[in-house]
């Protein structure tokens, strides 16, 4: 090696590859107000759409009179179901195999449902027009309770034959959607009946909403001359949207271009297809002009996809010593008026069967019943893999309840039931193959970090002080060890609308040694342009700063299933690494030719190929890139490009240990988070700074959900939390300080060992916060109360336990 060559570590650092806390390249534009979101798109002659929405949760539509609206200057069209029916677009398929009204067809099933769509010259006229549409309703009995709905004579979905099977098998009742069963029912019940100790509890994970900063919206632009439709939108899965639009509109797929520009947060809210998209496309086709539709905040909270709303009845059994013997769960899932859950087709309750968690549970059974009610449709994975937050919350609550039943420390109960390191790959009783894990190491590290034993002593003293009247504050220690399942997923069992859940990356190396890579995913704030360039930098030896990452334009990016469920790194990240390896393989041949040695006599070294045993003889990747475009190399095509479509062999299973220390004022119900420790193991860490940011954000959403955020309905089906006054979105003031930590257990099947992390903090955070509340009241006999733990509910818990004297 000559003196001019920087040493290996320096060359590595210059690449800013895996493990570098490289600053986010996106933030240059975001912090300067130069982002380009859907609402920033302004096209020549663009029209605006607005909805007339139902004030009732369940009503028959007697008549719709659009005359006054049409008479308003500037209104071009008012669409109703009657107008869409000849096109077959008054209903649309949902991702869950059901169908959903685009515009109310004879009745409405939830408050805020789309009834008519007004198209006008500007956004204000559209809103004025919407107010002039006269709709006559006849109110019908409202069902907001799923248990009630399953008993009621009231038929919500009159369009469905009550006797006919649904998309996921037989229906038991006209308001029943599906039953999904996993595991062994009889064997599990037998084990539970014969175990020493059984804990039984109803765990409710309330209805909430992802509430991204930017609401959903689109701009549809039909060019009648060339027959091409361009659809800009807040789509977490632009390619799938293109296919869906083609299937339901009859337009050929090559004539549709879907573009997801910058997206201001998705969290699952932007996975599905909404009536606003369909109406905007129809309006653009009819008028020949571009049509924009963007939800306001109330529309977002009230009508586009909610999350959770799972009633999880559980039984968990153990030996006297605390070894878990069986887990049984029956979930009643409130899906609202239409089943519009965004899950892989074969999983109508998502991956709820990850509910055995981090524990070696020999026997388990899960059944989920989906139910129609008079609420908005949705059921999306709000910053989690499909229904994984529900599963994690369920098992982490059941563990706590079992600990009470056993009169045992909940940290110790977890420890003796963890899947052991040497059991991986581990096949769970409900059928998943966990790829890798080291739960004991993470757990012990977490307990030491927070000084767990001292905290328990302090808590015991606090209880004494409380009983002696010296304090009105209780101390809760919320424990959670979660295991996620992310990276959907293997095409053999994961598809959405028949589209396999692979993902993709296409790379072009430019002659001067920079590159562009395009992926089938789409960032909504995750920092893909930063992290995917880092993966590539390490794979192909060009600096991350010289690599552009582009996503979201279906005319240029390779097909992929999009970004949700922490799937981008596990699937598209793997595709990126694999495409990078193809580049490297060709580069190796070019280098060997240039160095006049055999292919096998050169080896890759950070940013170059060197002749084995003679490191002073090398060609840098930059030199090789140029050679690929200017030398005639026998047997090798010019250029340096690669594409990879990656079908993951398995999911990845990130895990973590979270501990929350919380002070609770029993009189006001207020809480204060004194300490929050979050240890995450997401396998290989691509950008530690971005991981930390993801953990902070996810924990803050978890705090919101656990401590106050909900979509609440009254008995008439009115949404009580339709604005940010009542829907809790934490600000810096409510957000505690977080301590982050990690262990690293790479995924054995992922090309770079990465697992995905963005959603872990929401999955693990919710039970950690909630368990802290429960734990504070455990010494006074509390077993289970439902979230959200807002002031009055905490006060009520204290009151019910007789703590107000």
């Amino acid at each position, binding site marked *: 090696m000559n003196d001019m060559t920087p040493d290996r570590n320096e060359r590595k650092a210059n690449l800013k590859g895996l493990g570098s806390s490289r600053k986010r390249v996106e933030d240059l534009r975001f912090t300067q107000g130069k982002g380009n979101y859907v609402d920033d798109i302004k096209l020549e002659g663009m029209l605006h759409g607005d909805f007339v929405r139902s004030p009732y949760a369940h009503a028959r539509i007697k008549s719709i009179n659009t005359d006054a609206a049409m008479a308003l200057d500037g209104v071009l069209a008012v669409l109703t179901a009657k107008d869409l029916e000849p096109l077959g677009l008054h209903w649309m398929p949902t991702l869950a195999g059901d169908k959903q009204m685009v515009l109310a067809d004879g009745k409405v099933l939830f408050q805020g449902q789309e009834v008519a769509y007004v198209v006008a010259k500007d956004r*204000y006229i*559209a809103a004025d027009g919407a*107010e002039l549409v006269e709709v006559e309703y006849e109110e019908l009995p409202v069902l907001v309770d799923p248990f009630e709905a399953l008993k009621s004579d009231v038929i919500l979905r009159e369009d469905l034959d009550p006797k006919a099977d649904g998309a996921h098998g037989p229906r038991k009742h006209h308001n029943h959607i599906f039953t999904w069963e996993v595991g062994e029912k009889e064997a599990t019940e037998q084990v539970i009946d014969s175990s020493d100790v059984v804990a039984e509890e109803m765990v409710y994970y309330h209805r909430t909403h992802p509430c991204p900063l930017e609401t959903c919206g689109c701009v549809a632009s039909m060019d009648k001359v060339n027959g091409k439709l361009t659809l800009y939108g807040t789509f977490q899965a632009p390619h799938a949207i293109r296919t869906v639009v083609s299937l339901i509109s009859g337009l050929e797929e090559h004539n549709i271009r879907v573009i997801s520009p910058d997206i201001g947060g998705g969290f699952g809210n932007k996975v599905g297809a909404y009536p606003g998209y369909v109406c905007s496309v129809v309006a653009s086709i009819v008028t020949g002009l571009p049509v924009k539709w963007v939800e*306001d905040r109330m529309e977002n909270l009230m009508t586009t996809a909610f999350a959770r709303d799972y009633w999880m009845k559980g039984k968990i059994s153990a030996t006297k010593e605390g070894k878990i013997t069986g887990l049984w769960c029956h979930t009643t899932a409130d899906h609202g008026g239409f089943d519009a859950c965004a899950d892989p087709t074969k999983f109508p309750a998502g991956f709820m069967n990850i509910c055995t968690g981090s524990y070696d549970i020999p026997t388990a059974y899960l059944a989920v019943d989906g139910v129609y009610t008079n609420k908005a449709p949705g059921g999306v994975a709000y910053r989690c893999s499909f229904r994984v937050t529900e599963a994690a919350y369920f098992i982490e609550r059941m563990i706590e309840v079992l600990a009470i039943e056993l009169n045992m420390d909940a940290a110790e109960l977890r420890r003796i039931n963890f899947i052991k390191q040497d059991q991986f790959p581990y096949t769970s009783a409900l059928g998943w193959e966990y790829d890798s894990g080291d739960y004991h190491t993470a757990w012990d590290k977490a307990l030491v970090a927070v000084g767990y034993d001292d905290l328990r002593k302090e808590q015991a003293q606090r209880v004494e002080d409380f009983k002696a009247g010296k304090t009105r504050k209780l101390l809760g220690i919320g424990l959670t060890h979660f295991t996620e399942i992310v990276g959907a997923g293997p095409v053999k069992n994961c598809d959405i609308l028949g589209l396999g859940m692979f993902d993709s990356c296409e790379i072009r190396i430019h002659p001067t040694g920079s590159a562009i890579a395009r992926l089938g995913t789409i960032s909504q704030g995750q920092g893909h342009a930063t992290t995917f360039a880092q993966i590539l930098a390490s794979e192909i030896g060009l600096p991350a700063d010289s690599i552009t990452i582009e996503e979201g334009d279906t005319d240029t990016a390779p097909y992929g299933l999009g970004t949700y469920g922490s799937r981008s790194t596990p699937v598209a990240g793997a595709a990126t690494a694999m495409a990078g390896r193809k580049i490297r393989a060709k580069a190796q041949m070019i280098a060997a030719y240039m160095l006049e040695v055999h292919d096998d006599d050169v080896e890759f070294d950070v940013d170059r190929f060197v002749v084995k045993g003679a490191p002073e003889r090398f060609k840098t990747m930059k030199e090789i890139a140029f050679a690929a475009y200017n030398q005639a190399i026998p047997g090798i095509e010019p250029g340096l490009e690669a594409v990879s479509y990656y079908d993951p062999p398995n999911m990845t299973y990130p895990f973590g240990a979270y501990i929350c220390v919380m002070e609770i004022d029993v*009189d006001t119900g207020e809480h204060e988070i004194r300490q929050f420790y979050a240890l995450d193991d997401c396998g290989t860490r691509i950008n530690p700074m971005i991981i930390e940011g993801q953990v902070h954000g996810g924990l803050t959403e978890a705090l919101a959900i656990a401590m106050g955020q909900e979509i609440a309905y009254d008995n008439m089906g009115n949404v009580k*939390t339709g604005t*940010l*006054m009542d829907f809790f979105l934490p600000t810096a003031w409510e957000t505690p300080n977080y301590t982050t930590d990690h262990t690293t257990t790479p995924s054995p099947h992922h090309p770079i060992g990465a697992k995905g992390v963005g959603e872990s903090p929401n999955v693990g955070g919710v039970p950690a916060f909630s368990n802290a509340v429960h734990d504070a009241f455990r010494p006074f006999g509390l077993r289970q109360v439902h979230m959200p733990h807002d*002031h009055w509910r905490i*006060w009520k818990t204290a009151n019910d336990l007789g703590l107000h004297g």
Partner: protein
Amino acid sequence: MIPAAFDYYRPNDLDGVISLLQEHGDDARVIAGGHSLIPLMKLRMAEVPHLIDLQSIEELTGIENGARIRIGAMTTQADIIDNASLASSAPILKEASLQIADPQVRYMGTVGGNVANGDPGNDMPGLMQCLDATFILRGPNGGREVKARDFYHAAYMTEREDDEVMVAVTFDAPKGGYAYEKQKRKIGDYATAAAAVIISKDGSKCKEASIAMTNLSDTPVFCGAASDCLIGTSVSAEDIKNAVNSMIDAIDPAEDNRGPVEFKKHAAAVVLSRAIERAWQRA
């Protein structure tokens, strides 16, 4: 969240405002900071064909400090927080203002708008009742004064006539200890329960006391009887309990997303006890 069309006016003096109000009657509303009115217009719960912006009217601005304090109606909560002399003569204003909404709102939200709108969630009305403030109104027939304690009839129903404008609030510089205690769910929220307390001391006894509660009825609640429970006492735990019990009889909270009536009464009791304790310590 798109308001209906409206005409916008920005007169330079109060006469201009009042003549517009006379001309358009019910169809006109004045706008100060707009943080109550604009959301209502965007929700189309308030239709205001003629919107009269007060921000160019010099007469409505300014803080005059002294034995009698005068705060112009267009004074923002941020102005109050930043006014060092006011913070020393009437510190309860700063303490309360810092608990209103968030900094962005406080740069826009005004004293006049807050007291005139009649929203039971607003903090200033209860505070003004605690201070025994006087509101100065101007209408077609000139000015008049109304006591804050007589101003509120029901939610959004006040003593102010449609063609009158809130010009200023005035009150004597408070003496003794003070506290504004507010429980809320989050930044930006209205109170679950809030208490304004001013107490002065004569030796070891309470000389004067004034208590008003916020968002626990459809108007602010001045609690004269509760205040009387403290006067002449040494403000012991027992005395505080008596005042709290008296306050509970005076409030009439409604159930909402902040919680049921029983909880609100409990929270009211807690915030008032804490406010009295803090005010007494400062007296």
